[in-house]
């Protein structure tokens, strides 16, 4: 009992701060990854050979850029993007410094997830909307994004959890903080296994919660049976 109390006294503040930093970095970069990723996914769907505006060259070039973005290991991307972080948010360090590389790393991945979700929307619905005189923009907003919403929400929880893992790397490498940073600093560098185990346990719980929220939200908004 006493041991636990002592542990809480000593590390509660550190771990709370870590939870907060992790959630902020993951949440904010997930948000910005979608700001970039939704247009990418929409463009991929619209210009595909079976899309509303087939454009082979554009589609292939964009697909190639997306694949390239996804194939660069995150740890390399992180270092490559240090100058861009400094330019955009004024620093390459800390929580805000980590958000730029996290966003850029996730955007192509999100683009593919969005493409996948929108491809599931039945062609017949797009055609019905066209037959009522919908413009391409209206079809994107009122058919693709609306009908694909449950699937898009599932994608958001996948992205959040994927970025959760990246945040640990970014935190450790650029001193951005977060639970991964704590686990590595205390566990590997100071041999305080207990702190590492608790930090990892909190990570596991947070991921489970993120998945559950995503699943139940997707279920609740889905009006299909």
């Amino acid at each position, binding site marked *: 009992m006493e041991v636990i109390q002592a542990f809480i006294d000593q590390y509660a503040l550190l771990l709370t701060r870590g939870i907060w930093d992790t959630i902020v970095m993951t949440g904010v970069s997930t948000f910005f990854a979608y700001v970039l990723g939704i247009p990418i996914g929409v463009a991929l769907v619209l210009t595909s050979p079976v899309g509303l505006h087939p454009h082979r060259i554009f589609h292939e070039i964009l697909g190639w850029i997306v694949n390239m973005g996804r194939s660069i290991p995150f740890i390399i991307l992180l270092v490559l993007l240090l100058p861009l972080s400094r330019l955009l948010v004024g620093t390459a360090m800390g929580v805000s410094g980590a958000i730029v590389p996290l966003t850029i790393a996730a955007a192509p991945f999100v683009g593919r997830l969005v493409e996948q979700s929108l491809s599931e929307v039945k062609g017949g*619905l797009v055609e019905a909307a066209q*037959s009522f005189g919908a413009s391409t923009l209206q079809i994107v907003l009122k*058919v693709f994004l609306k009908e694909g919403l449950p699937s898009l929400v599932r994608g958001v929880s996948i992205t959040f959890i994927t970025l959760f893992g990246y945040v640990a790397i970014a935190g450790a490498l650029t001193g951005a903080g977060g639970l991964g940073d704590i686990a590595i600093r205390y566990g590997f560098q100071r041999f305080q296994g207990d702190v590492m185990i608790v930090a990892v346990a909190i990570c596991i719980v947070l991921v489970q919660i993120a998945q559950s929220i995503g699943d139940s939200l997707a279920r609740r908004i889905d009006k299909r049976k």
Partner: protein
Amino acid sequence: MIEIRHLTKVFSGTSEHHALHDVSLTIQDGEIFGIIGASGAGKSTLVRCINLLERPTSGRIIIDGVDVTGFKGRQLHEFRSSIGMIFQDFSLFQQRSVLGNVTFPLELRHDKREHRQARARELLELVGLTDKEKSFPSQLSGGQQQRVAIARALANHPKIMLCDEATSALDTRTAASILGLLKNINKDLGVTMIVITHSLSVAEKVCDKIAVIDEGKIVEQGLTAEVFANPQSPITRELLKNDKLSSVLNGADLDEAAGELSGGGA
């Protein structure tokens, strides 16, 4: 009046496929016009050319004296919104309520919310689904879904309605009631209807005139009763012979046969 002049549609791909070959038809206002043919005959392509979901390779579509074939952008969207369309698989938006589906065409035109909903409720009453406005398509039967689709197609006060195998996914009784509804809409609202079907009994039940299409060509057209009584082309005779409809022509229950036939799929 809808005038289709020398319409040809070629799908270019690995091999060129002539879906339509020099098709000419004239459809008068207020008619229910059937386009009959086996699957793959080109009837779906033909009707999709009318609202330019499919671009004709050559030929003209002239509606009330206006050549619409070259319409693009805003003009095209406005033209399409003046034509209602219903589909074999209903094509209702699954994430929208019944009311949301019917207001969809009006949303596209930025109509005011109250106006949209008032119009949608009026139409739901017309198709007998007033109590379902808050339901979602997945909670409705096939027949109810097609009624919602009909209400949606009528939202913009169209003068023309295209029906692409509208009863083919429905059972006997339901198909007959949908056909009855379409006929009433034609009579009461004066909407010109183009009905695509592979089922001769559907054509016989609702169409004033029919055109028989085979391999992308119109092989015969005329008043429904005349074509049925005195088919000129071998294709029409074959369709008549093969159709289970023969029993209907001999006086069996029309509704039952209509459904039996349309239950067979496209």
